[in-house]
Structures are given as structure tokens and as C-alpha cells.
């Protein structure tokens, strides 16, 4: 995780708001909690991100964004914030503790974006953090004030619009550019029509349009999306007639709400029937989706064919209903609905009576995604990244299926989805959420025994990973009881394996070992190779920690063979580690070193940070045994840091091995050198530690603004675009120069920012100048 923060680049130009930016900056210097309020579409998020980005230098420990739109459960607020900060998702008596500990001595700015549906949770969390972290500042966006002591509220106004009287002033259209709404219109219009300029001919109409739209940025963007096919005058005329229909009768709505709602309604009505259907249907996605997902969920009936989805999505992008964004993999494209537009689409979907059917299709797509194999093999890192991209969709699907009002078959399917994600929950900071979802699911009306069994043992496994052994024991014992009565041998096997490990870890080795043996027999009988591999690993660890290294080695060797046959890269890495430790205990240091290095390579490939920490630790013991005390101590220091990052504890037996190695190193080196070597290892990044351990060239420091690891590689076209940005060209000018569409130019700029970790065009310009790239 970049220590400077997690802000990403802006997709479109930021226009105006100079006064508001200055106000936010001043407020942040004086108050510790600043809340930007205002209705949907007014630009709160853009303003917050821009202000925070501009203020980054003032925060030594960075600026961190947590987007809350997709979160419905207030109990997960602290965990979500922790994930944004890159903290391990550990169990704690109070959810705020880990955040306070991390932020207490840090000078950072947190952005809590979209607090309105979790106002009280955000308020209580913000208050607790501000009390415990003296140098922390929080910038929140919300439709409602948080009502926290010391909070400064800034109501984000609409953009300035010219009055009717102002249009007759000398200077004509040139004066219009001093109105923010007009400048925004011009900027977004140029993205659609590169040749569009505001002149004396169209100036009054544009001004009237901006007034009609009350200067609301989202409404203006929706309107400019129509310029491909309509003139500003035609847009205004249609808006006028649309608003006339809307404004008659009904309860009074605030004018700004009418303007935005009216624009949304008008945009909707201008679409074809299939385009409207597409808007309604994509509104079930939470936050973003890709084309495959859209084809699965939205198509397949007489209204929308699978072949038409790509064109429909493209059309909605062109009309500013959807935003095109880059996925985690820069080559992947995702689409996103702004919250206000998505909420509108959902209302329309409900009005058509189609919401449930679409949510079931959305659930089906999520379930298929979770059921894809990928947790074990060479593609594990990619599998994790893909699920991470879809996390909000998975969350929405689980929320839908695990509602108390859902029928039993849907609840069962939802539990199945939560369980299918059992290897995903621990991977990227979703442990608390996974545990909470399963706990809530188990509280729902009685489910068939196989469904409950699986949920119980998966919940028990997650509790073990979060080091909640008492909680794990309770769940796994229930799983075994339920599995025994069902009967459900596969569930019994998993529950027994994990309970055996938990009991061993809790100091009951006899019962633990017996359970592991019975689990292994059950898995072999059922032919579950993953279960066999898993249990061999757990049993092997128990045997190692019990001093039975020969028996452990046999088990790890069998596991390694099976994993190689099955392509289970993650578990193979663990087996290599186990064999390494067994070899080390047998004083075969050469073999031990080779095996541990092999394990470390596999752990890196699988993004398995537990095994990375284990392998670094054992490589430290091996180095000390080979009398390379300095190297060994650095590895031990790096291992300690790696464990701390994931809140991992060493088993007591393994801790003894560590202590033995430290004493042996102390016999070889003077104490100051011991301390220095440990400290040197402790400050290594994971990538540096792995490279050091494997004798690889040290990874270079992050390129300016680039991600940690390999230097960013821009395509030839991206380099051209970067060079033109350095010349001060706007997106539309770049598009004209390269004979591409403005949207394509926008996308290239976004990709450049993502790859280089930048958030402003000036950073691109500086990088381009420094790297000497030019067209």
C-alpha cells in the first residue's frame, strides 16, 4: 500500500469551484472534521477529492479515501476504513482499536465519501477517531450533517449561472466564461463535439440551459451528453416541455431536486425503449460492472439480446448515463453509474415490477463468479483481483439473498455464495465482513443441515484466521454435531480438520491430532483432493510443532505431490515450507534452503502472505544455522514485520525455533550488530524482503507516482498522450491532434494516471518532461 494514500486520477477535467476549494482548504486547517453537504449531483465527491488532492502535501502520512456508497451494514464501517488504509482485518474487542492504533501518531486526512445512509455510524466513528488521533483530519461528504462536536459544514452550492439580465452585458459570450456552469458546459460539450465553442450565437441558449438546470453539475453533464444529436436550443426546448409536465401538481420539491430529477427523467425519455431497459437493468449492479456481467444480467429476453449489449452500453456511455472507467487490470474496462443515476434507474426498475427478477439474475452471475475455480492454482492472484473488483456486487447479492424476507431456497443459495468465497474473505481484508455475513445467515430461519454445516465450518475457519480460537471452537463443534446428525461426511471432514488445528493451537494436542487423522480419512474416502491437501498441511504443521519432523515430512511430501498434480499452487507453497522446516530440523541445511526458497516463490505467486512470512522466518533460521548470522537476522526482522502486517502469531514451537536462532546469531555477532541487522530487515517492504531472501535484484523504489514493483509501462499511444498533456492540451485538443474521440483521449489519460499513480495532469506533464518522451 502506497504510504501517500489511495487517491486515483480524475476521469474528467475539474472546472471552477475555486471559492469552494479555498473554503475547504481553510476549513481543514482550522477544523478537524469538515463535512461537505448538498443534494445528489451537486459535486460533493469531486470537490472533496480535488480539495484533498491539493492538500496532500500538508499530510505527511497521506490522504485516504473510503467510499461508502456500497456499504449498508454500519457494523462494517471500521473494517471498511481499515481496508482502505491497507490494514489487516483482525478481530478486536472494539472495531475502532486497530484504526486508532494505526492513526494515533499519523498526520493523515481521511475522506469518508457518501455518509448519508450511515450518518450515525460515521459520526460515532469520526468522533472516536478524532478523540484518539490528535493529528487526524476527516473530510466527509454527505447529504446530511453528521452532528459531531467541532464539525464544520460546507454546503456545496450549485455552480454560478448567468442571470437573464447579465446576457445583455457588453462582452457577449466572452463574459459567460466567468460563470462556472457555463465553463462546465463548454468543457463537457467539447468532449462530445471537439469543435464546439460557446459564441455569441449559442451563448444565450447555453446560459439559459445552465439556468434551467440550476447550475447542477450532474444535470449539466447529462444534458451535454445529448449534443451529438441535439443542439443546445433543442435540448433547452425539450427540457422546457419536460419540466412543464413535471412541475404541474404534486407536493412541492426543492427546486434543485426538480431540476436534477427533471433532467434525469428527460434523459430517460429521450432514450429508445431498449436503452431505457438497459439503464433500468444495469442499476442492479453495485457501483460498477464489466461487459460480461452486463451481458449475463441484462440480456437474454425479447427486450435485450446478448449481441446488443455492447452497443447499448456504448450508447449509455455516450449519453453520460454510464461512466467508462479502468478496472484493476488496466486492460479491463468497467462501467459505472453515479449513485444518483443508479438510484433513478432502480426506481424505474421497481416501477416496472422487474426488480426481483433482475436481482435474481445479478445474484446468479455473482454465484457463478464465486464458484469459478481459481482459489488454488497459478491464477490465484488474478482470481483474487477479479473478485475484489466485484466486491460491491458480491455484497449486494448477499444482502439480497440473505434478507429475512427471502424464501428458503434463495437464502440457501446466498449461504452457498458466502461459503464459496471462503478462500476470498481472508485474502484482501474482508474477514470481518465474511464472518458477519455468515453469522447473520446462521441466524436466519432453519436451513437444511448440509447448508448449515458448511456455513458453520466456513465460519469456524474464518474465526481461526482472525485468531479467534474460542469463537472458532464453538462454531466448529456445532458444525461437527450438525454434520454427524445429517450425516454430512464432507462437512464433517472440514470441520474436524479445522477443529483439530484449533484444539492443538489451544493446547489440546491429543484431541487435536485425533480429529486431524479422522478428517484425513474422511477426505480420502470422499475423494476431495483439496480437503486431503489441506488436512495434510494442518496435520504436518501439528507434527512439526510436536517434534515429529519425519512423520511431518512424509505428509508434506505427499501434499506436495498431490498439489503439483492438481495445480494447487498455494498449498504447494505451504508444503514446500513444511519440507524445508523438516529438513532444517534434520540439519540438511542445503535442502532446507532450496525448499524454503521454492515455497517463497510459490507464496509470492499466490499472494499468500501467511506463507511469505513463514518462509522468510524459516530462511532466517537456515541462514543462522549456516553461520550467515547477519543475513539470517535480516530475514528474521523481515519475517516479524510480515507477521505483524497480517496480525499472525507464531506457534509456540516455532517461536522456540526463532528464539534458538536469535541466540545462535548472538553467539556469532556482537549485540549491536544483531540489533542493527534485525532492524534493517524489519524496515524492508514485502517485495524487498522476498527479493533479498531469493537473492534477486532488489526491486527499484517506486517510480515517481508509480506502483510498488515493476516500473509502469505505458503504451506508445499513452506516451503520445502524455507528451500532449505536457504541452498543456485539453482532452478534446489531444483527441483532435491524434484523430481519436474525446472519450478515448479521456480513457488514455485515466489509464496513464492509474499506471503512474498520479492524480493531476501536471504530474503527467512533469513525468513526461523528466522521461524525455515526445511525439
Amino acid at each position, binding site marked *: 500500500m502506497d504510504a501517500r494514500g489511495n487517491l486515483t486520477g480524475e476521469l474528467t477535467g475539474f472546472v471552477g469551484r475555486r471559492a469552494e476549494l479555498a473554503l475547504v482548504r481553510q476549513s481543514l486547517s482550522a477544523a478537524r472534521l469538515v463535512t461537505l453537504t448538498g443534494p445528489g449531483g451537486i459535486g460533493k465527491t469531486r470537490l472533496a477529492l480535488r480539495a484533498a488532492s491539493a492538500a496532500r502535501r500538508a499530510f505527511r502520512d497521506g490522504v485516504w479515501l473510503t467510499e461508502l456508497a456500497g456499504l449498508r451494514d*454500519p457494523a462494517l464501517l471500521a473494517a471498511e476504513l481499515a481496508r482502505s488504509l491497507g490494514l489487516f482485518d483482525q478481530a478486536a*474487542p*472494539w*472495531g475502532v482499536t486497530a484504526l486508532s492504533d494505526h492513526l494515533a501518531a499519523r498526520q493523515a486526512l481521511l475522506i469518508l465519501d457518501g455518509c448519508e445512509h450511515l450518518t450515525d455510524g460515521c459520526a460515532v466513528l469520526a468522533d*472516536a477517531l478524532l478523540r484518539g488521533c490528535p493529528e487526524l483530519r476527516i473530510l466527509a461528504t454527505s447529504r446530511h450533517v453528521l452532528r459531531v462536536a467541532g464539525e464544520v459544514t460546507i454546503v456545496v452550492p450549485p455552480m454560478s449561472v448567468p442571470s437573464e439580465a447579465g446576457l445583455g452585458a457588453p462582452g457577449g459570450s466572452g463574459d459567460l466564461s466567468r460563470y462556472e456552469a457555463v465553463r462546465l458546459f463548454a468543457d463537457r460539450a467539447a468532449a462530445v463535439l471537439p469543435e464546439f465553442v460557446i459564441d455569441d450565437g449559442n451563448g444565450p441558449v447555453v446560459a439559459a440551459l445552465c439556468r434551467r438546470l440550476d447550475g447542477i453539475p450532474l444535470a449539466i453533464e447529462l444534458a451535454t451528453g445529448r449534443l451529438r444529436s441535439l443542439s443546445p436550443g433543442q435540448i433547452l426546448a425539450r427540457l422546457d416541455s419536460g419540466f412543464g409536465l413535471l412541475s404541474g401538481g404534486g407536493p412541492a420539491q426543492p427546486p434543485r431536486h426538480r431540476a436534477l430529477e427533471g433532467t434525469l427523467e428527460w434523459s430517460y425519455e429521450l432514450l429508445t425503449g431498449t436503452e431505457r431497459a438497459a439503464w433500468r437493468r444495469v442499476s442492479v449492479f453495485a457501483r460498477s460492472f464489466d461487459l460480461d456481467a452486463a451481458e449475463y444480467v441484462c440480456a437474454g429476453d425479447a427486450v435485450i439480446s446478448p449481441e446488443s449489449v455492447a452497443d447499448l452500453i456504448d450508447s449509455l456511455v455516450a449519453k453520460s448515463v454510464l461512466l467508462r472507467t479502468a478496472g484493476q487490470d488496466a486492460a479491463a474496462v468497467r462501467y459505472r453509474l453515479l449513485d444518483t443515476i443508479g438510484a433513478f434507474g432502480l426506481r424505474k426498475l421497481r416501477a416496472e415490477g422487474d426488480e426481483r427478477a433482475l436481482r435474481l439474475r445479478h445474484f446468479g452471475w455473482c454465484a457463478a463468479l464465486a464458484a469459478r475455480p481459481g482459489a488454488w492454482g497459478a491464477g490465484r492472484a488474478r482470481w483474487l483481483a477479479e473478485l475484489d473488483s466485484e466486491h460491491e456486487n458480491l455484497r449486494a447479492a448477499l444482502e439480497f439473498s440473505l434478507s429475512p424476507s427471502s424464501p428458503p431456497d434463495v437464502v440457501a443459495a446466498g449461504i452457498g455464495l458466502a461459503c464459496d468465497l471462503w478462500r476470498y474473505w481472508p485474502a484482501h481484508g474482508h474477514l470481518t465482513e465474511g464472518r458477519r455475513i455468515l453469522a447473520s445467515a446462521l441466524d436466519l430461519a432453519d436451513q437444511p443441515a448440509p447448508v448449515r454445516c458448511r456455513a458453520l465450518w466456513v465460519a469456524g475457519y474464518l474465526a481461526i484466521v482472525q485468531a479467534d480460537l474460542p469463537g472458532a471452537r464453538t462454531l466448529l463443534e456445532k458444525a461437527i454435531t450438525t454434520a454427524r446428525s445429517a450425516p454430512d461426511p464432507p462437512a464433517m471432514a472440514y470441520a474436524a480438520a479445522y477443529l483439530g488445528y484449533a484444539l492443538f493451537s489451544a493446547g489440546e494436542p491429543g484431541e487435536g491430532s485425533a480429529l486431524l487423522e479422522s478428517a484425513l480419512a474422511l477426505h480420502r474416502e470422499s475423494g476431495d483432493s483439496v480437503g486431503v491437501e489441506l488436512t495434510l498441511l494442518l496435520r504436518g504443521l501439528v507434527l512439526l510443532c510436536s517434534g515429529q519432523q519425519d512423520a511431518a515430512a512424509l505428509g508434506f511430501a505427499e501434499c506436495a505431490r498431490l498439489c503439483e498434480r492438481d495445480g494447487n499452487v498455494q498449498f504447494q507453497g505451504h508444503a514446500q515450507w513444511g519440507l524445508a522446516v523438516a529438513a532444517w530440523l534434520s540439519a540438511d541445511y542445503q535442502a532446507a534452503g532450496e525448499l524454503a526458497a521454492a515455497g517463497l516463490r510459490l507464496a509470492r505467486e499466490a499472494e499468500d502472505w501467511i506463507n511469505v512470512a513463514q518462509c522468510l522466518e524459516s530462511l532466517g533460521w537456515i541462514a543462522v544455522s549456516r553461520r550467515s548470522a547477519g543475513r539470517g537476522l535480516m530475514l528474521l526482522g523481515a519475517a516479524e514485520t510480515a507477521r505483524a502486517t497480517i496480525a499472525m502469531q507464531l506457534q509456540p514451537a516455532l517461536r522456540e525455533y526463532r528464539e534458538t536462532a536469535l541466540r545462535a546469531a548472538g553467539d556469532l555477532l556482537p549485540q549491536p550488530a544483531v540489533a542493527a541487522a534485525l532492524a534493517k530487515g524489519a524496515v524492508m517492504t514485502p517485495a524487498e524482503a522476498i527479493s533479498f531472501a531469493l537473492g534477486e535484484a532488489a526491486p527499484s523504489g517506486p517510480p515517481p507516482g508509480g506502483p510498488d514493483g515493476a516500473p509502469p509501462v505505458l503504451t506508445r499511444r499513452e506516451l503520445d498522450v502524455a507528451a500532449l498533456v505536457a504541452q498543456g492540451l485539453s482532452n478534446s485538443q489531444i483527441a483532435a491532434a491524434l484523430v481519436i474521440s474525446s472519450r478515448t483521449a479521456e480513457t488514455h489519460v485515466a489509464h496513464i494516471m492509474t499506471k503512474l499513480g498520479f492524480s493531476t495532469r501536471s504530474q503527467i506533464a512533469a513525468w513526461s518532461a523528466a522521461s524525455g518522451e515526445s511525439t
Partner: protein
Amino acid sequence: MADDADLRLFLVEHNLRGLPPAEQASAHRALAEAVRREASRGRRIRYVQRIFVPADGRCLCLFAAENPGAVRAVNDIAQFPLIAIAAVTSTAEPTRDRGRTAT
């Protein structure tokens, strides 16, 4: 609250093992604030009493509320995982001072 005589009592168990005293105080402040906010929205809930068992880090919090959902809600808002919640009866006289945090 106009008349909370018909509210039920619910006992919540938290595990505070390892939480320093200062953090315990912060957590309970957060819980009290969560109750205050929910009550201000018209939800009928009151934080009655807190009992701490230092020997094993258990904390028992007593709430008066309409239903267990209201009690879960305030604990969720306060980011305070609960181990168990149970409807209880009590012979002790709970404090009826509204708006005060129970000690």
C-alpha cells in the same frame, strides 16, 4: 422517552479482554452516543448499566429497549461486536435518568 415502563431489558455480553482502560472508556462513550442518536430519532432505547468483570475481560451491558434489534443496532453503530444478547429480567432498580450514560 414518554414512558418506558413497557420496555424490555436486554443483556449484551462483550469481550474486552486486552482492551486498555482508556479504550474501554472510548468504546462505551461511543455506545452511549449511539444510544443517544437512536433515541433522538424516536427509537425507544436506553443504556441502563454496565458491569465489567476484570478477571476475564467480560463486559455486560444492560439496555432497556423495545426489541433486541434496537440493541443490536446501537452496538453496530458503535462498532462494538457483541458475543451474545439475551432478554433478561432484573430485580435491581435501573437508573431512570434520561440522557445520562450509565456507569
